[in-house]
Each structure stands twice: as structure tokens, then as C-alpha cells.
């Protein structure tokens, strides 16, 4: 019963997502959620011990972000987003 969590902003959406995660869940950062790469790289480092984290490529490139701190994060396109929703039993959106 794993869940995909999408996070579209840092701030409240990211914070709430963190306390709703079960081991084995997946997190996908999209839209302004990709700013977590800079604003919350410590939080993401910690998080990666328990769950897999992905970023949506189009949103990362649009904003000029890079995986500057070499976090162990997967980059997916919309097709990859679809695959994440297939691989998990349900989707929870945090916005």
C-alpha cells in the first residue's frame, strides 16, 4: 500500500507531506516544489533515508535549478510521473 506524494510548493505543502509519509512511499517535487533542492536540501537528504524522491524535469529546467548538492534524486518526465502513479497504490497531492 505505497503512496505517491506530489508536492508543488516548499513551505506548508512540503512540511505537511513530511509528516504523512510511510516507509516505501514516493515523493515527487513539481512546480515550485522543485525549489526544495535549494531551500530544503538538508530536509531532502534526511528524507532520502526512508523514501525515494523525484523531481519533474520540465519544472526543474524551467526554473534554472540544478541538483547542485548531488542529492540522490531521480529526474522524471511526465511519462515517469505516470509510471510513479502506476507503481503506487494511490496519489496524495500537497499544494
Amino acid at each position, binding site marked *: 500500500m505505497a503512496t505517491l506524494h506530489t508536492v508543488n510548493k516548499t513551505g506548508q505543502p512540503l512540511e505537511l507531506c513530511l509528516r504523512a509519509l510511510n516507509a516505501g512511499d514516493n515523493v515527487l517535487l513539481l512546480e515550485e516544489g522543485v525549489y526544495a533542492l535549494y531551500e530544503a536540501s538538508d530536509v531532502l537528504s534526511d528524507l532520502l533515508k526512508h523514501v525515494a524522491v523525484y523531481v519533474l524535469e520540465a519544472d526543474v529546467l524551467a526554473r534554472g535549478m540544478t541538483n547542485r548538492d548531488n542529492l540522490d534524486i531521480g529526474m522524471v518526465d511526465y511519462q515517469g510521473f505516470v509510471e510513479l502513479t502506476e507503481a503506487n497504490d*494511490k*496519489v*496524495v*497531492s*500537497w499544494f
Partner: protein
Amino acid sequence: MSQTLCIISTQAPYRGQFAKEALDAALVSATYDIPTSLLLMGDGVYQILDGQSPEQLGRKNLSSMFQSLELYGIETVYVDGESLEERNLDPEQLLPLYTLLEGDAVASFLAQHDKVLSF
């Protein structure tokens, strides 16, 4: 097998129609006989602050909507305890119709539902 639904409401009341439209969804869900839970997190916990008087804003009081949930079979509203603490809210300031989820309980509570609809 009947699917269970959790509706998560994370926005403060009277910020546009977010809170009201989440409550509408919960009520309609219950009338469709879908086992429905309503979970307040983040600024959503302000929705059950007692003593709201939004009439001056020309808005309906959410309290009466919360109180009518029970008539539709939604016996309680689930509230994230950490969100209350962050906002320095005392339980006595809230409408007495909620069940507190403390610590890890939010994560396991969500895992118990088949579908989640966020607001």
C-alpha cells in the same frame, strides 16, 4: 468492496472557497454512501476555531456546516495535532467535534484509505 475516501483540507477558512468547497465535497461524498473521513491539517485547523463570525464578510459560518456533518454519517473530524501546536491553539478554543491524530498517526491514518482528495 466499498472504497474509502479521505478528504484533506489544508487552507484557512474564508480564503476564497477552499474550505467551503472541501466541506461540500465531504457532504456529497457521504450522501453517495462513500465511507468518508475529513482530515484538517496546516492552516485547515483554523476552520474549527470556535466563535467565528464571518457574517461581516458576507460569508456563511463554517461551524454550522461542520455540525451538520454528523447528520450525514461523518461522526468526527480528524485533526493533525502538530498543526495545532504550531499555531499555539488550545483544544478549548476548538469546536468539540474532532479526533486528534498525534505523531505518526497521520501517516498510518492516510494509509488506511483507498483514495485521497486534497483541498
